[in-house]
């Protein structure tokens, strides 16, 4: 059982009256992975998560979590997941510790065990100081962490977080991210977001969703290297334009170049290498040989944002 994937989704379809939210998606997530579901609003991320957490049935297809079917063995699945829905709904009238105790007991933890676990998660989520405060009076950052603490309090195998960092300030986002990263290995985490750097920093795999379909699924690095062929190299060099142009046209690895004037007597050269090779050492040697002045030499890596825009663009136009 332990070697089986944590999540197995095959041909999952969800139709609401009038529109299809998920159009037959299939994927699987191995144990210990942190997977990011990325996509614009309405792509089907939340629907996928709601079906995985047994809140909503699928129209067709099968979904298994830790080997259990979400429809037929719903209670077994729910025992193994920690789910934080979008907007993080909490009981505002309760105190933090009281709420976590309530949730831990609901999730089947005994009295002593729940006390231990609550102490642990309060510390993990830096909530110890506010454990006696009323949830309704807490700031957004604290509330979000209370939701996270609730999701992990019973040490679930699978943690499902729907937009965990939405509406947080940069400092709080860092805190939440590092918390999610610390969960990897022992837990499987599925997070959804439409914030790209989040996925880039926390996830071992990214699935890009659009219009109820999965368009791409790979590690952030692999997705980037797939695009790297088109990554440009930028060099700012103080040299006459004509000399620069001849140099680039003589360099075999340069597929395309563009030289534009910059401040002072510097020129900005944007070079597109052939086959995605790294031209920086060659450029540096050239500059040294000619005795030019160099003030910038960078490789324009494709961010996940470019990939995301590229992957989702054609379909958006179709719509």
């Amino acid at each position, binding site marked *: 059982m332990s070697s089986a994937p944590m999540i197995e989704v095959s041909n999952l379809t969800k139709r609401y009256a009038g529109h299809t939210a998920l159009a037959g998606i299939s994927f699987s997530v191995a144990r210990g992975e942190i997977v990011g579901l990325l996509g614009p609003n309405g792509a089907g991320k939340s629907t996928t998560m*709601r079906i995985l*957490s*047994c*809140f*909503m*049935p699928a129209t067709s297809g099968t979904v298994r979590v830790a080997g259990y079917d979400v*429809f037929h063995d*719903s*209670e*077994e699945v*729910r*025992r193994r*997941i920690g*789910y*934080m*829905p979008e*907007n993080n*709904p*909490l*009981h*505002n*009238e*309760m105190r933090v510790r009281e709420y976590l105790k*309530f*949730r831990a*007991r*609901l*999730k*089947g933890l005994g009295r002593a065990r729940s006390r231990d676990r609550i102490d642990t998660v309060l510390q993990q989520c830096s909530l110890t100081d506010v454990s006696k405060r009323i949830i309704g009076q807490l700031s957004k950052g604290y509330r979000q962490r209370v939701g996270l603490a*609730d999701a992990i309090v019973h040490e679930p195998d699978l943690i499902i977080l729907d937009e965990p960092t939405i509406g947080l300030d940069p400092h709080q986002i860092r805190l939440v991210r590092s918390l999610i990263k610390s969960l990897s290995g022992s837990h499987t985490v599925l997070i959804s977001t439409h914030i790209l750097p989040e996925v880039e920093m926390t996830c071992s795999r990214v699935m890009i969703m659009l219009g109820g379909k999965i368009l791409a699924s790979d590690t952030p690095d692999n997705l980037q290297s797939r695009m790297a062929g088109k990554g440009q190299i930028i060099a700012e060099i103080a040299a006459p334009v004509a000399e620069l142009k001849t140099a680039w046209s003589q360099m075999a690895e340069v597929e395309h170049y563009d030289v534009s004037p910059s401040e002072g007597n510097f020129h900005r050269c944007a070079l597109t290498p052939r086959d995605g090779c790294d031209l920086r050492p060659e450029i540096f040697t050239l500059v040294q040989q000619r005795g030019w002045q160099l003030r910038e030499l960078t490789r324009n890596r494709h961010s996940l944002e470019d990939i995301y825009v590229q992957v989702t663009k054609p379909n958006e136009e179709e719509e």
Partner: protein
Amino acid sequence: MHVFLTLMRRELGTFFVSLTGYVIISGVALLSGLSFCVLIRQMGGSGYQLPVTELFFQSPMFWFTLLIANAVITMRLYAHEKYSGTYETLMTTPVSDLQVVSSKFAAAWVFYMIMWLPFLGCCYIIQHYAKQAGALDTGVLLSTFTGIGLFGAFFISFGGFASALTVSQMVAAMLSLLMGLALFALSYVSGPAFSSGNWQEQVLSRFSLFEQMQEFAHGVIDTRSVLLLLSLTFFFLFLTLRAVESRRWK
């Protein structure tokens, strides 16, 4: 069992951590106090053969209290959780639908019974001033509270059902108020309970809540009424369970 108790404790707690619970209890205290004042004025010192409790239930005040309080208590049971989203966090924990429905019902019913405690106070005040042993009888008081409890269970079960159907507390309250009023009106239509007449009237008269409560307040616990109220309660709890489960069919 501990899931049921955990859920029930939280549910009951929500009445007391917010103003809702206190407002309802003081409202009921005010209403029953008022109706007792009216009662005492009406009696005007002349001797009455009936126990105080029975006189109280002859006034419509009891029914107003029951109808309005029931709607206010039950409207938030499911609708509020659905609206705020906590329903999603609740239903994704390993709790069964039956545990959710039964704990919510139990908590609302316990609160409903607590709500009637001021009424007990009124009874004792009357007894104190009437200085008559017959004014208040423990047996009658017990049967009265049995009646209050059974009626409460029935009203709360359909109030809960109304709340399980919708996201809006307002709609839930309107639905349960409407149904309560319809049942109340039926009592007037059908005439005296267990009357002889054609079969339609016979059937309707079985649902005459007014008359049935009167019986309880008189100190009579009629098994027919008890069974009717209990089966109606279970029927609506069953419907509520179906409504909660319907999430899995859609």
